[in-house]
């Protein structure tokens, strides 16, 4: 449903997106994961036709976004990162207007609007102006405006930024419902828990480039079956680096207050790790053992934390 090949977007000398390629299929959620400023929104803006690519090609629903823009755009539903709703129109009027923008009319449009109002949980406030809504309610309306015309492809650009936990769960439900209906969902986020929870396939993007791509299992395999041990406390970095090397483990990050290592069979080796690190004179306050996750993967690939 979405085919991106060698997409490049430059602003003068600044390359915001650098030869990005990926594909997303119908009935799946494809996650684009990366820190703020990595190029996720620029990529999604090119896919939605808001920005013209400097190079490369984008096809959505089988239509080229440059040469067949009208047909391509008709297949898309957009949920932008920033709210894109009329605060001086009721929720019902907002949905009706954006439904009409994609050609819905008459009884079909009305039914669809009522359906979406129920799905986003705003049926009882449908005729109120959004300026009277909470932030989470506005987010849900923003989401509904992208869904109202039943798009084949849904582009979600960080849809949960600033959303309360209750609204976030409702948005996750909506995404899963769309996926179950066969919609292709492209989901950008810098929250790894969301990506892990929702996405069937992922691409990790940093500095405009895709640095890893695959299913969650594929990406976890990058660690070769290693577990992650995270320690917090007071550390001598030089001594800790020597001690971890003797253990045959891999340091993912270390500073005077925290240490993260990847080690095979972490549960069995945890006592050895604590002993060796303790012998360096470290004062260990807290210990956490986990399977590799996207955060640790990102750390391994880029040497920096995802939320930095």
């Amino acid at each position: 449903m979405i085919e991106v090949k060698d997409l490049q977007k430059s602003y003068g000398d600044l390359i915001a997106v650098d030869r990005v390629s990926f594909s997303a299929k119908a009935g799946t959620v494809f996650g684009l994961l990366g820190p703020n400023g990595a190029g996720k929104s620029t990529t999604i803006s090119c896919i939605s036709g808001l920005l013209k690519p400097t190079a490369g090609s984008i096809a959505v629903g089988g239509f080229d976004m440059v040469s067949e823009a009208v047909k391509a755009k008709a297949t898309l539903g957009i949920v932008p990162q920033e709210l894109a709703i009329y605060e001086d129109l009721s929720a019902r009027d907002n949905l009706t207007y954006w439904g009409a923008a994609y050609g819905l009319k008459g009884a079909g449009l009305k039914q669809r609007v009522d359906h979406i109002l129920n799905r986003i949980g705003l049926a009882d406030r449908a005729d109120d102006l959004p300026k009277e809504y909470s932030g989470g309610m506005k987010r849900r309306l923003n989401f509904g405006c992208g869904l109202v015309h039943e798009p084949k492809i849904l582009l979600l650009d960080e849809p949960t930024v600033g959303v309360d936990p209750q609204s976030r769960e409702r948005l996750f439900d909506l995404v899963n419902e769309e996926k179950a209906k066969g919609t292709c969902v492209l989901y950008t986020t810098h929250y790894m828990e969301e990506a892990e929870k929702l996405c069937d396939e992922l691409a990790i993007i940093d500095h405009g480039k895709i640095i890893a791509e695959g299913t969650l299992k594929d990406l976890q395999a990058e660690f070769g079956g290693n577990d992650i041990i995270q320690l917090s406390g007071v550390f001598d970095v030089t001594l800790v680096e020597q001690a971890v090397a003797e253990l045959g483990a891999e340091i993912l990050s270390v500073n005077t207050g925290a240490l993260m290592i990847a080690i095979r069979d972490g549960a069995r080796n945890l006592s050895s790790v604590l002993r060796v690190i303790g012998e360096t004179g470290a004062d260990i306050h807290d210990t956490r053992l986990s399977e590799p996750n996207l955060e640790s993967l990102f750390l391994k690939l880029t040497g920096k934390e995802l939320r930095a």
Partner: protein
Amino acid sequence: MRFIFITAGKELKRRFNDPGGLISSIMIPFVIGFLMASVMGGGGGQSSLNARLLVTDLDDSFVSQSIMRALSQDQIADVIVLESVTQEVGDQRINDGDGSGHLVIPKGFGQAWLNREEVALELTVNPSQYVSPRMIREMLESLLDLGDYLHKVFGEELKIISNSLGGDELVGISTSAFSSNITDKVSGIAELVFPPALEVEDVTPKPEGTTVGMALLMLPGVLVMAAFFAANGQSSNFWIEKERGTLGRWIASPNAFYSFWIAQWFTAMALTAIVAAPIMLAGFLYLGISFEKYFAALGWLALTGPILFAVLSLIQVLSPSKKAGGMISTLIMFPLLMAGGSFFPTETMPPFIATIAEYTPNGRVIEPLKAYLIGEFGASGLFSNVLGVMAAALLLVLLSGLLSARKALA
């Protein structure tokens, strides 16, 4: 095309959901127009711009009656309506704001004037009026100047006439000597005053019927002022939609970007009609204009008024930000309102400004409407240039669309 009208409908709904802007677009021009018309002497409908002068003649002499007669002459009576009152009534009416001025001719004024003794007329003017009291004062000063010249030339004869009033014969001089004296003096100055060296012929075409009141002259300008205010609010919509992200959602939809601008143009038409309709209704009722002209006048405004939206939109999209656009368009709007004839009718302007007014966008809307309301031409004449104004507006709107496309995505 369907979605353009849906968008225009959506825009109108947004305005009605936040009616403050619409109400101020109606009320501000209404109040300004009312105040300006009042300050400039008011006058409604087809009546003339008259000042009402209350006169108390305590002297009741030949001289005071001559002043009264002079003020009642046809040409002066066109602008000053004279009304004799007692001093108490005159004072009371001026205190009540009823009348432009109260002139008291004191007892003994005539005799004092004939004897060239110091004497004064008492004029109390209505402080709530501006133009009419000035007209009265200037008229009286001119009259007194004329009287002074008369006194210098015919002072003795005037004394004789004054003394002889009530009798059958001139007192103190023979009739033949009196006549001969006057004839000699007139002959002596005749070369200076007859015939006049220059003759001024007024060739300005006048509408048939009665003269035109200030309020009627101001009405088209006030209506266009309302359209201007509505257009100013609407013209910033590009920036508002950009800030709110809805413009991005539009661009991501399958609809062409220029249709956004066409929809704004249609919205401006509807908004112009909405803000002009109540003001026009009030104006027609107050001025007694035939309602046969109402819909043609409203139609003209609705179709041509968006030229103002087009101009302001272009300013907005050429500006680097919403704030700058708002400032620049406001800076341009008020001089245009002044020069284009919304605050002052072109008839009251110096000729060079009136000429400029003809070429302002609002002047293009105001002047044909004014001519139609006055009766200089009919509805067909009014609409003879409607396509030209609409085409100019559409061109500017499309230019705004072209220039804003890049900014919309920035």
